[in-house]
């Protein structure tokens, strides 16, 4: 394929996914809006008013970056894991691409771009919801955008690996439920690591999502529990490892070709 033909193939994969995401918007967009509204209402307004300030800012303002990331992570991951799983098991529509000259890296790029776009849209929607509960401080817009894109990228790549490996619907639910959710909740969405006693601080600091949330929070509030360079490094490391894994799995046809 020429580079132009590869671009057309990439565009086709992404366009198809975007059409799907918008067609089923009550499943793709609405749940995050409802959930984040409840979080802001309960943790921000009801409990937040009793908690007062955290790291020098009102509690509701402190939790905004973490709640945005919570939605971005889950949606980016779910988008690629479900799309890959569904195209493998519901009528095998993935064969449409596998029989074509589309190279594996375009397939990875196309699926992942769909996940990134959904992550970014969800991020913007949850930020929009947060405006009903607090005003936003933007310390560094470039950091915010970079962390949004990189986080969506990492979890789209992770979801794709999961989708490739999954052999049943349980296979795409186990990791989000039993691994991602605990990592997110223990990653500092609702608290600062400085407020944790002894061992819990260490547990939080070995959670990679802690660095993602803190880097993103730095973009808004200019404060972070970890150095920004480490936060970037963690994201770049996982992006590189997961991209290589995906490319290898799809090139070998793991779970796709018999």
């Amino acid at each position: 394929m020429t580079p132009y033909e590869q671009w057309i193939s990439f565009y086709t994969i992404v366009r198809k996914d975007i059409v799907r995401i918008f067609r089923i918007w009550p499943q793709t967009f609405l749940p995050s809006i409802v959930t984040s509204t409840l979080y802001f209402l309960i943790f921000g307004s009801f409990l937040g008013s009793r908690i007062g300030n955290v790291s020098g800012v009102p509690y509701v303002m402190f939790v905004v970056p973490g709640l945005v990331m919570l939605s971005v992570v889950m949606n980016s991951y779910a988008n690629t894991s479900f799309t890959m799983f569904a195209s493998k098991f519901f009528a095998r529509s993935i064969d449409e691409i596998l029989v074509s000259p589309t190279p594996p890296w375009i397939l990875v790029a196309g699926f992942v771009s769909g996940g990134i776009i959904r992550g970014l849209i969800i991020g913007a929607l949850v930020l929009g919801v947060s405006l009903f509960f607090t005003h936003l401080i933007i310390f560094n817009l470039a950091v915010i955008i970079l962390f949004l894109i990189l986080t969506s990228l990492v979890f789209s790549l992770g979801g794709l690996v999961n989708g490739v490996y999954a052999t049943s619907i349980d296979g795409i639910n186990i990791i989000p439920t039993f691994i991602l959710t605990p990592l997110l909740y223990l990653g500092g969405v609702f608290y600062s690591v400085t407020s944790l006693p002894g061992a819990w601080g260490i547990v939080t600091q070995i959670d990679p999502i802690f660095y993602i949330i803190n880097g993103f929070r730095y973009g808004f509030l200019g404060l972070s529990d970890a150095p920004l360079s480490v936060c970037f490094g963690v994201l770049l490391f996982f992006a590189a490892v997961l991209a290589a894994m995906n490319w290898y799995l799809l090139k070998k046809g793991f779970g796709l070709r018999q």
Partner: protein
Amino acid sequence: MNALSIKNLEKTYAGGTRALDGVSLEMPPGDFFALLGPNGAGKTTLIGIVTGLVNKSAGEVEVFGANIDREPEQARTYIGVVPQNLNINIFEKVIDIVVNQAGYYGVPRSRALPRAEKILADLNLYEKRYEPAQRLSGGMQRRLMIARALIHEPRFLILDEPTAGVDVELRRSMWGYLTGLTQQGITILLTTHYLEEAERLAKHVAIINKGSIVAQGSMEEILALHDESAHTGKLRGGRLEEVFLQLTQS
């Protein structure tokens, strides 16, 4: 240069099932070739390997001179495939299914749309182009898969039981359509369990049984294998059917 050249093709699945055992085949360009065999003979595995959906264990496959290991992308641009089982996203619109397929081959939407409309009209699906595929009948969905396979203008069309479950009238109209494609120079590989269909359409035939080719040649050569004295049952089929049974039941 042959449209398809297969040498000593072998496939053993992970569970140990040996699906293909040293298959060799050659199909000249422009041919209408029937690959016949009982269920589980290895037809779909062979097609899967040629189209890139199944990894072979050994052997060489070339499509119009492009080796599927060394030039897989080139080989795939030549092929259009209609699989045995329905593999379309039934929630997508008919036109989108066809146009998206063109996109995977690098054909832009602006060029694919008019092409898709023409193919859908040829296959009597034009009126349904904005309907989701789930609203099509079984026969229409089969024709949709043919339209999808043709959208990138392949030189080699592979049809894996395209008329299974299709009524007689529609099957005959598909025969006419497929014959028209060979007249345009498209090479066709057909698998079917309707042997009168193969007898009517194919110039060359290969019969595969338990992963091995048991006979191949022109239709006349295969029909000449018919041994009247070997027939013992009361029920009689067409000549190809009788040859098929002699070769696959022994």
